[in-house]
């Protein structure tokens, strides 16, 4: 294919019969199926693929895997665009569009680099020295625009992201030779095995060298073995939970799948990453890892250059040089940092390669790519040699990939021969194999070389050996401080190529052995992950499911405005056409006070508490006395936590001697159910009590208002409902249309009120029946907002609104209740404290002719806040504004006029009793 100037005539695992067109920075190129974006760019002779973050230096492809620090690209456009991908990981497809993320207008010609705009601003430690409050926002905006961390799409991502849970006996991470061997072995007896590999093809470092088709066939034929390709293990958490993101881009169906895998044992066959060498000019495009140059030749049939110079500190690079020669990549010289050349030196010399032992690199030359390298003896006794080249292959040895091992709680140890951290002790069930198990390539020579220009350690964040020296001089000598001060290892690659070199350079500067420098601990994710993969399908309507009422359809028919109240989708009210919210509330309140209203109370929590010790149990749970509650009667109950603070309240019914129905606040049934279970199971296992949450079994409607009794009678219940039997705070059981129903005479509105409960599947019918029975009386459905106004007029407490976790019973007027009770109950000790001197905030009623805002402060004479308004609203019944407030000594300040302060505005209000309407309770029997 014309244009692919650096494609070797043969070789590689690419399909030369399937050319693919793509663009990079707006220019059109062609690659082959099987290419990555990086290999295709190299095949086209593109050398500058990105700009560094801080200095905007031109950078070329450095690696062939996910450790890549330089070739960071934005792929796709519109809603599907994805930033910060490594070109070495992006599989080429026809029509792919990519841009360098850190360059404007493009990687080859970058304005910031030309103007040198950033270099002076971004010295080491720039986080701390330059971007000081209050201008951080300005700087971060500038950095993001010019520094280029990629662009998130503006439109919603239309792709589908899935999640999956899986369990296996053995999880093998890494599909190279060692991982494949482990998977074959582990699954031989039918064990459940998952093999995860980040590449589209199995074989790891041996791709293009060995054929793994047969092994893949063996694995594929096993029903209990699953192979995930293009899948990166991101995190290893407690109890062998491993997260994996599988890339499915290009396939029909989901774009990515996020796996949570629970494994009996984990085999790490994660291989090793080659270390760069730290020498001046080591970031010039054309300088790459020796193993990467080999991978491009063998796996992709690409010559990353035509005249290569190898700079190394180990024997393995000699073989790499021979492999390159075999593949058709010219190699002219090899410089070995060690005083003695490796055993393959003669083999290289025989093929015309100049081998220079004891030599390091001191400079590179070239504009947009390396044109020559200067090599010099490291002992200083000799001349520099300049060698023309267009590719420098560097190798500083190999780091086993211990990231996941470290995440799992394992500790590493320093291997001096290979200068790498290797696994030492395991905390979770796993083992390492292959290159991940131990460093195998001994290295020698210095950690860094001095010469002309900066020598880079962290390529993406532009941290040089000189920067590390500066940090050390400023006493940032701990590796943790060094990292934070210089941002070393904090780029997208999280130090995969830089961390060990930094430790080595620091040890060289401080004259301290490497193990005493230490290493930073690794944390998930191993590689960046999309938010889409983490979110999965939990989007839109599936984001958070609200509990729904049995009569929801009836509410919708009735014009209800439905909202989320405590996790339930409930009617806020039933606005008439064009009716404003406040008008609606006042209309619904007035209907209840003057006629009759209908309210859906189904979310009220209902817990059956039964057993021989049920009464004793509830006596300990509630602050007030429940032992004296008669069968057939209801009582208001107040629960406290261990600290004596108000936890919940509700109505308790005694269904039988040993059976109670505990009412909780709406949405509180689950929480209080767990609270009761905790006390039963952990504190009082001697009590013979069981608890059943029946909240969803029952639909409950509330008939409230002076005409409620009329409607109740019109419902045709088979139950005793006369005022004598069903007096206030009594309940009765009966039948409605042959189905069981409970009727409780309880009131949260202050009016005569009946709570009728039927099995939930009859809830809609009951709602309709009540509307029908009340039609002649002008029954008005009312919502949560009107109910809240009605209870506010009565001064009834709303736990969680008028209380907070520091509110004691006596702060809300229930101090006597607890003190009068002789038996122990949860929180009792706190109720026995002498709190009079505390100047505590206590709940008090507030009234005013002017609007009162929730959250308004009550000011004292000194202008300081003495408390705040907890609930407020206009009382249509009284014709003025009423509120509740937690105010210092509030309960003893009735009649006092105070100043309210609400967002800059002041107004006057009077403190008074909690109950503003019908304090005698006459309306309950009206």
């Amino acid at each position, binding site marked *: 294919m014309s244009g692919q100037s650096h494609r070797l005539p043969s070789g590689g695992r690419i399909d030369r019969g399937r050319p693919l067109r793509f663009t990079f920075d707006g220019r059109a190129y062609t690659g082959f199926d099987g290419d990555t974006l990086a290999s295709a760019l190299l095949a086209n002779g593109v050398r500058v693929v990105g700009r560094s973050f801080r200095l905007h230096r031109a950078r070329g492809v450095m690696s062939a895997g996910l450790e890549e620090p330089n070739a960071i690209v934005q792929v796709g456009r519109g809603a599907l665009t994805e930033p910060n991908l490594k070109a070495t990981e992006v599989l080429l497809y026809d029509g792919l569009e990519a841009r360098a993320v850190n360059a404007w207008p493009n990687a080859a010609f970058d304005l910031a680099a030309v103007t040198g705009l950033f270099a002076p601003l971004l010295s080491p430690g720039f986080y701390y020295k330059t971007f000081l409050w209050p201008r951080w926002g300005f700087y971060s905006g500038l950095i993001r625009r010019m520094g280029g961390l990629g662009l998130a799409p503006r439109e919603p991502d239309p792709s589908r992201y*899935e*999640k*999956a*849970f*899986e*369990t296996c006996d053995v999880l093998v991470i890494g599909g190279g030779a060692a991982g494949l061997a482990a998977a074959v072995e582990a699954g031989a007896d039918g064990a*459940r095995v998952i093999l995860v590999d980040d590449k589209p093809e199995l074989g790891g470092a041996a791709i293009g060298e060995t054929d793994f088709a047969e092994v893949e066939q063996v694995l594929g034929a096993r029903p209990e073995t699953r192979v995930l390709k293009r899948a990166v293990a991101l995190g290893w958490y407690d109890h062998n939970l491993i997260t994996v993101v599988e890339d499915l881009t290009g396939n029909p169906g989901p774009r990515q799948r996020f796996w*949570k895998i*629970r494994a009996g044992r984990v085999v790490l066959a994660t291989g090793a990453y080659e270390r760069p060498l730290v020498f001046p000019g080591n970031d010039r495009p054309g300088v790459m890892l020796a193993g990467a140059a080999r991978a491009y030749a063998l796996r992709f049939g690409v010559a990353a250059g035509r005249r290569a110079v190898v700079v190394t500190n180990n024997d393995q690079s000699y073989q790499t040089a021979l492999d390159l020669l075999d593949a058709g990549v010219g190699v002219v010289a090899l410089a070995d940092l060690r005083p003695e050349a490796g055993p393959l030196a003669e083999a290289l010399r025989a093929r015309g390669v100049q081998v220079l032992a004891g030599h390091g690199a001191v400079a590179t030359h070239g504009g947009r790519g390396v044109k020559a390298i200067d090599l010099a003896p490291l002992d200083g006794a000799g001349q520099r040699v300049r060698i023309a080249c267009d590719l420098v292959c560097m190798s500083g040895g190999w780091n086993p990939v211990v990231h996941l091992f470290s995440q799992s709680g394992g500790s590493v140890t320093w291997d001096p021969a290979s200068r790498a951290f290797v696994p030492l002790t395991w905390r979770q069930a796993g083992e390492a194999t292959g290159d991940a198990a131990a460093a195998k390539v001994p290295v020698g020579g210095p950690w860094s070389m001095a010469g002309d220009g900066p020598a880079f350690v962290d390529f993406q964040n532009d941290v040089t050996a000189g920067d590390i020296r500066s940090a050390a001089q400023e006493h940032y000598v701990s590796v943790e401080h060094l990292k934070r001060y210089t941002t070393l290892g904090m780029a997208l690659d999280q130090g995969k190529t830089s961390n060990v070199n930094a430790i080595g350079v620091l040890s060289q500067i401080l004259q301290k052995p490497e193990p005493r420098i230490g290493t930073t601990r690794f944390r998930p994710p191993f590689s960046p992950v999309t938010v889409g993969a983490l979110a999965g*399908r*939990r989007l839109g*309507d*599936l984001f*958070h*499911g609200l*509990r*729904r*009422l*049995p009569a929801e359809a009836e509410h919708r028919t009735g014009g209800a405005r439905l909202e989320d109240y405590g996790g*339930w989708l409930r009617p806020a009210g039933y606005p008439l056409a064009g009716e404003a919210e406040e008008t609606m509330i006042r209309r619904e309140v007035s209907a209840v006070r003057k006629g009759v209203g209908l309210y859906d109370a189904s979310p009220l929590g209902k817990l*059956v508490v*039964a*057993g*021989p010790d049920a009464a004793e149990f509830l006596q300990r749970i509630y602050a007030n006395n429940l032992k004296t509650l008669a069968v057939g009667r209801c009582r208001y109950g107040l629960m406290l936590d261990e600290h004596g603070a108000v936890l919940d309240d509700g109505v308790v019914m005694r269904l039988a001697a040993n*059976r109670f129905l505990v009412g909780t606040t709406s949405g509180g049934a689950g929480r209080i159910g767990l609270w009761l279970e905790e006390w039963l199971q952990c504190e009082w296992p001697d009590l*013979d*009590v*069981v608890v*059943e949450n*029946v*909240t*969803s*079994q*029952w*639909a409950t409607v509330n008939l409230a208002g002076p005409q409620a009794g009329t409607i109740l009678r019109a419902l045709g219940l088979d139950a005793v409902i006369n005022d004598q039997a069903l007096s206030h705070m009594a309940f009765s059981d009966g039948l409605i249309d042959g189905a069981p129903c409970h009727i409780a005479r309880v009131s949260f509105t202050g009016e005569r009120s009946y709570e009728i409960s039927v*099995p*939930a*599947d*009859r809830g809609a019918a009951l709602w309709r029946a009540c509307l029908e029975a009340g039609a002649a009386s002008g029954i008005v459905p009312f919502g949560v907002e009107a109910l809240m106004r009605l209870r506010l007029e009565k001064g009834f407490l709303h736990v969680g609104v008028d209380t907070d976790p520091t509110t004691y019973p006596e702060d809300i007027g229930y101090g006597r209740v607890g003190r009068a009770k002789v038996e122990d109950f949860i929180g009792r000790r706190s109720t026995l404290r002498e709190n009079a001197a505390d100047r505590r905030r206590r709940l008090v009623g507030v009234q005013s002719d002017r609007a009162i805002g929730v959250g308004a402060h009550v000011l004292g004479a000194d202008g300081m806040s003495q408390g705040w308004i907890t609930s407020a609203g206009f009382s249509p019944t009284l014709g003025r504004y009423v509120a509740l407030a937690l105010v210092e000594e509030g309960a003893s300040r009735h009649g006092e006029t105070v100043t309210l302060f609400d967002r800059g505005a002041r107004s006057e209000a009077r403190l008074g009793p909690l109950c503003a309407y019908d304090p005698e309770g006459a309306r309950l029997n009206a």
Partner: protein
Amino acid sequence: MPDLAVIDGRWTSVRGFRGRGRDAFAAHLGFAPPQAGTWHEVEGRVARWIEPDAWLVDGAVAEGPGLLVTDLSAGLFAVRVSGAEARSVLATGCPLDLHPRAFGADACAASVFNEVQIRVRRLNGGFELVCDRALSHVLWNDLREAAGLS
């Protein structure tokens, strides 16, 4: 394509008082309750283990000594997921290991599907999922979504 079907039926929670739940169950219902983590069917009546001394039984049960018997027919929602893909559909939202080796023919366990608490039971050719009625639409929509039916 997996098959989703709502299971209609009557459900009764049977909870035994401390220490005598199993005996009270057996005496009152005429058959022994299932062991922990399992379900069984005796003379056409399915009983699922819920937690120590608690079971969920198909059909009506009269009040009995030593037991709290609660009709939950209207408070629970059940769905059957069946077909070759049933396990992979559940794997999108349920962290339980539902492999036949780990979750056998008589297995019954508490778990979640996404955010909805469920009780899972293996059926012949599929699974039964039981959840709270108020969240039935969430489970149903999530399952349809996962099964590619919506």
